[in-house]
């Protein structure tokens, strides 16, 4: 068990700066998800921690030891790769045993630990088979078992579920959470899928443009985004941003006046599910354009102040396209954003 400290890491590819002085601390036993769109630097950061990539500047410490210049095999890590990287020319048993064999563990030790990891991931029936005959989900289990078998101080996972189909992904996510909880290994989990990050992580670090925009518990990041990007990236539908002008600390929206934390150009961040439907004339005026019944809820697309907004309504709501409604909001759940910097400036 170990903690990970990423200290002011910079990575440059030629003139392009992929990581701009990123710092991050992952506590012992914690699972942190690096979440962000492709190209945000999350995979690069993970590969630097693994030692597969060398940082241009900065340090990486694992369990207090500076591993910045060590080869991957000397860092005490295990990794699960995006395409599993399960060796096709070895049986499942040999795959899971690979790390142990490289450590020159005794035969009995290898057998015991492989069997334990196999039991954890429910792959005992396939131990004698070659990976070519396994499905994607089974290969995924082998990859995880191989990583856990070496009892690593740190487990790194690079989009491990992205190659599975949707249903299997959901199933594996739940199972992965249970397995990782039991193993209690310090884990960094890279993903671009917000539901994975929300469901699995103790904390989420949202990355954008080579920086960490916000790090915090999943619900905290969701409810109180630190930047416009975080609010827009998390949540489905994404947070709505309404450009407004604030005078003397107040914004007037139809018959509702809201207290704004700044004057001038501001943006109001509103989660689609945080608005309640009300008759026209009360609350924020909302013009419905498209109504999409999604089963568990109804998705309304329309305009607030002439700007696109998506509102989540209960499945029983009776709304027709073209209708004008009012929206009631809880000021405490609103996010105010500085239109210029894109950073949150206050709530309510």
């Amino acid at each position, binding site marked *: 068990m170990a903690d990970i400290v990423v200290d002011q890491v910079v990575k440059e590819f030629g003139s392009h700066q992929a990581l701009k002085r990123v710092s991050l601390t992952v506590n012992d036993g914690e699972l942190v998800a690096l979440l962000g769109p492709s190209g945000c630097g999350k995979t690069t950061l993970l590969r630097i921690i693994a030692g*597969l990539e060398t940082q241009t500047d900065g340090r990486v410490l694992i369990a207090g030891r500076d591993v910045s210049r060590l080869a*991957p*095999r000397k860092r005490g*890590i295990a*990794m699960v790769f995006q395409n599993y990287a399960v*060796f096709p*020319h070895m049986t499942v048993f040999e795959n899971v045993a*690979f*790390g142990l064999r490289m*450590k020159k563990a005794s035969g009995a030790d290898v057998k015991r630990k492989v069997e334990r990891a196999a039991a954890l991931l429910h792959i005992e029936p396939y131990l004698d088979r070659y990976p070519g005959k396994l499905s994607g989900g089974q290969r995924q289990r082998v990859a995880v078992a191989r990583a856990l078998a070496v009892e690593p101080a740190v487990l790194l996972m690079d989009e491990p579920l992205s190659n599975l189909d949707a249903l299997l992904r959901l199933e594996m996510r739940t199972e992965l959470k249970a397995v990782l909880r039991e193993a209690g290994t310090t884990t960094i989990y890279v993903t671009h899928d917000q539901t994975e990050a929300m469901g699995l992580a103790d904390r989420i670090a949202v990355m954008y443009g080579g920086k960490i925009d916000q790090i915090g518990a999943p619900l905290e990041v969701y409810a109180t985004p630190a930047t416009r990007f975080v609010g827009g990236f998390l949540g489905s539908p994404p947070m709505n941003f309404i450009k407004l002008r604030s005078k003397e600390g107040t914004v007037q929206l139809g018959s509702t006046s809201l207290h704004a934390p700044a004057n001038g150009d501001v943006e109001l961040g509103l989660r689609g599910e945080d608005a309640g439907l009300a008759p026209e004339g009360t609350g924020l005026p909302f013009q419905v354009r498209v109504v999409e019944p999604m089963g568990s809820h109804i998705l309304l697309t329309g305009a607030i102040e002439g700007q696109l907004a998506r509102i989540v309504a209960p499945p029983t709501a009776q709304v027709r396209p073209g209708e004008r409604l009012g929206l009631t909001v809880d000021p405490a759940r609103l996010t105010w954003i500085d239109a210029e910097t894109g950073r949150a400036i206050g709530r309510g």
Partner: protein
Amino acid sequence: MTVMVSETAAPVRPRAMALPSARRLLLWTGLAVLIAWVLVPIYFVALGAFGGRMGVFRWPKSIWPSDVSIAPMQQFLAIEGVFNALVNSCIAAGFTVLFSLLLGAPAGYALARYSFRGQNAFRLLVLLTRAFPLAILALPLTVSFIRLGLYDTPFGVSLIHTVLALPFAALVTQSLFMGVPREYEEAAWVFGCTRFQAFVKVVLPLALPGLAAAAIFAFVISWNEVFAASILTVRERTLTAYLLKILSESPLHYRFAGGFILIVPSVLFIFAVRRYLFAVWGIASK
């Protein structure tokens, strides 16, 4: 009713089967002619090789094998120098395989896995060899080979044959190594391997069939080469050099026997690597 008719009129059949029968006949006839075109000369040289002295002068000849026996081939192999030439050919081809893979595979790996300054210059050097009639380079090498004691040895011949096979080996192994996902190697590093261990444990086993194909190609390149082998040997001739030398003075049936021995391994080799043939040449001709 019309719907029914059109449904039965459009049976579900593979596309090629749906070719009009006249065109299919044409296709099969054309292919049969082409296949005969390839096989007939081989068949006749085999008849010549096993027909012996009498077979060569029989007139008119029958296209069916008659009086064919193993004896003429045994006689041919018993001629002084023939067996030695056969051995020399094998030695030269063996060394060519060894050198072209030992030199070419690391270069192929470098091209597949790294991007480095001078990469394009190296690629150009490799491709440049193809615009040159390489065997001709044996001409100036005669003098330095005599000085180095390499002249008239199968080893010396294999060096110039390696120049022929090396660019090929480098390009083929490059694509082989590119076909082994980088992730496999990275996984091996993470789980405790050094770079070399990862190569031996993971990359090599996965690239092995392709490497075998590349080796066979190198063998055939050396086995078949005539010009450089003839220039660089006098007594320790390879089979091709030996046959070229005796062309004007030996009886026809010996020439046919020699030609047949040259052909046999090639045919078997092409059969062995047929799965790789197109992939390999697709790469090497880029």
